[in-house]
């Protein structure tokens, strides 16, 4: 959920509860005030009626409200004693509404010439349901109005206030440590954002530094390793030419040589990887991948015959792209070699070349772990000779030229290169 919506959500709930509580209190206060003033009115009318009866010689009782607003009955002394003025709500049939409507009723008792009278006074009352309805509607309108203003305020003001924050997020999204990209941070009027920017700047420069020194270390280490490995291999080769060697000794020496060669190849792959990542392959040329693919497959001819594997190249379209020719060769060679070596049961390898994609597929039993496939040192169990760097190198080359390298499994392993449209 976005920050703006998040705060808006809280405001909405908070307002909902506050307004509801406020509405309840307002309702009761209003009601209280209305009753108060109605009761005052009834009291006043009572006094007027009693005063009127005093003016007249005899009291005329009224048994129903009829056209008036009061009833007057004479009552016995017994029931009159201890009677107190009482107000209550009741229903009465209203001609105009043609329905029973609530009225406020005052019952009072007074005495005249030893005779007790009971007086009932009514006044029409506010209709509670109407009041609640009106109140509810005004509250809803108020609520909506407030929410709307908050949303507008959020979008106008908060967005402006948080602008440096969103810019920072955007910058961080685009930042890639291996790409040497710089992060641009703007100064803000808000102290917190400035502190955030400073801290992030510090963190980034620290990571970049440690990333670079690590890379440098790998480069230097690989480079320095190369000479002693070469010397050792050569010394063993010379030793192998000694005719007095026995077979068992020779076989052991060869095994040492093989392992040193593996080490050397591994080392060279690491060097190559760091060179690619350092963009040390500047020369770019237009390479025809159809020709290149055919050449590479031809080079593997003997290995293919030996493994009884067939390669079918389907040239749907010519695919030309501008790259360093050496890297293009390495990229396609790695993918083709990968397909040959990890082929199961003399399967058919298919290469499809279209105007902006290059795809190779070979039969395989199980889906490969897509997430780690292109990471360094990803080993395949049944091949102790692979350095685990081949696909990492392919990916580094693809990344360098914004080519998308992807893997899919559809009963067979499919590696696909998608070339950017503008080439």
């Amino acid at each position: 959920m976005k920050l703006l919506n998040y705060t808006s959500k809280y405001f909405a709930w908070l307002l909902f509860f506050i307004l509801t509580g406020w509405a309840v209190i307002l309702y009761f206060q209003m009601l209280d005030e209305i009753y108060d003033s109605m009761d005052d009115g009834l009291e006043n009318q009572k006094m007027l009626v009693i005063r009127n009866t005093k003016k007249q010689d005899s009291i005329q009782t009224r048994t129903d409200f009829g056209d008036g607003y009061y009833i007057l009955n004479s009552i016995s002394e017994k029931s009159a004693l201890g009677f107190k003025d009482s107000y209550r709500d009741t229903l009465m049939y209203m001609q105009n509404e043609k329905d029973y409507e609530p009225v406020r009723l005052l019952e009072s008792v007074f005495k005249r010439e030893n005779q007790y009278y009971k007086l009932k006074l009514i006044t029409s009352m506010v209709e509670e349901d109407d009041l609640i309805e009106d109140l509810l509607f005004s509250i809803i309108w108020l609520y909506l109005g407030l929410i709307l203003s908050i949303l507008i305020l959020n979008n106008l003001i908060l967005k402006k206030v948080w602008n440096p924050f969103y810019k920072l997020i955007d910058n961080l999204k685009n930042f890639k440590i291996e790409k040497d990209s710089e992060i641009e941070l703007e100064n803000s009027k808000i102290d917190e954002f400035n502190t955030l920017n400073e801290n992030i700047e510090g963190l980034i420069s620290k990571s970049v530094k440690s990333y670079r020194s690590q890379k440098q270390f790998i480069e230097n280490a690989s480079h320095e390793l190369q000479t002693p490995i070469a010397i050792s291999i050569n010394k063993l080769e010379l030793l192998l030419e000694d005719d007095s060697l026995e077979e068992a000794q020779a076989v052991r020496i060869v095994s040492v040589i093989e392992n040193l060669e593996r080490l050397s190849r591994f080392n060279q792959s690491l060097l190559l990887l760091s060179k690619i990542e350092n963009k040390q392959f500047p020369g770019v040329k237009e390479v025809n991948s159809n020709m290149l693919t055919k050449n590479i497959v031809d080079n593997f001819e003997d290995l293919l015959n030996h493994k009884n594997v067939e390669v079918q190249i389907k040239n749907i379209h010519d695919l030309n792209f501008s790259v360093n020719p050496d890297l293009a060769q390495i990229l396609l060679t790695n993918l083709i070699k990968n397909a040959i070596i990890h082929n199961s049961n003399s399967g058919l390898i298919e290469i499809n070349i279209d105007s902006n994609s290059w795809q190779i597929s070979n039969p395989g039993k199980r889906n490969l772990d897509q997430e780690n496939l292109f990471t360094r040192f990803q080993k395949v169990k049944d091949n102790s000779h692979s350095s685990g760097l081949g696909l990492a190198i392919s990916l580094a080359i693809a990344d360098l030229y914004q080519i998308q390298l992807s893997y899919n499994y559809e009963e067979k392993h499919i590696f696909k290169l998608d070339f950017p449209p503008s080439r």
Partner: protein
Amino acid sequence: MKILIVEDEKDMLQNMQDTLIKENYLIETASDLNSAIAKVGVYDYDCILLDINLPDGSGMEILNFLRKNEKTEGVIIVSARNSLDDRLLGLNTGADDYLAKPFHMAELNARVKALLRRKKFAGSEVLKIANLCIDVENYISKTEHGEMELNRKEFDILTYLATNQNRLVSKSALAEHVWGDHIDQADNFEFIYSQIKNLRKKLKEIKAEVEIKAVYGIGYKLSLT
């Protein structure tokens, strides 16, 4: 044949010296730029093996020195820097070949021999082992009994084994020379075997008095029968 090896790494120097002495060359060595230039100034060599990274300067200076003094020594650059730029720069400055470290001793031997052949005999020298004649330039291999029909790879294998006559050539050295770096250790180089089998059959057909022996399953050796 006189060869000068310029290399600052003592062990590397020793290795190259040991392997080339077996071919009966006269070897001299220099381990820095100044002594190398001093030697080149005084003597004439048939071939110079040159390391680029020297403690007191770049080996390229020796190439410049040779060119200025109009000397025609064959130069093979031996460098750990296996980049195309270095290779092109070296070859443009007058080097004849470029060998990237690490390399196999058999490869060094083959490169030196090929260079000497080109220099001394303008490439027309024919490799002769017993009754087998190999014309490297024209892809012809024959005995008095006939000529072999070899494909490119078989011919490359034969030439490589012939230049390293009586020396054990490991499968990886052979694979790298004939098939290129990219072949790696794919399937332990078992695919080499079928090529060797064909080659043996064809050698027999023309009654060549050489044989390709498999040595403990680790490599091959070409020797007289």
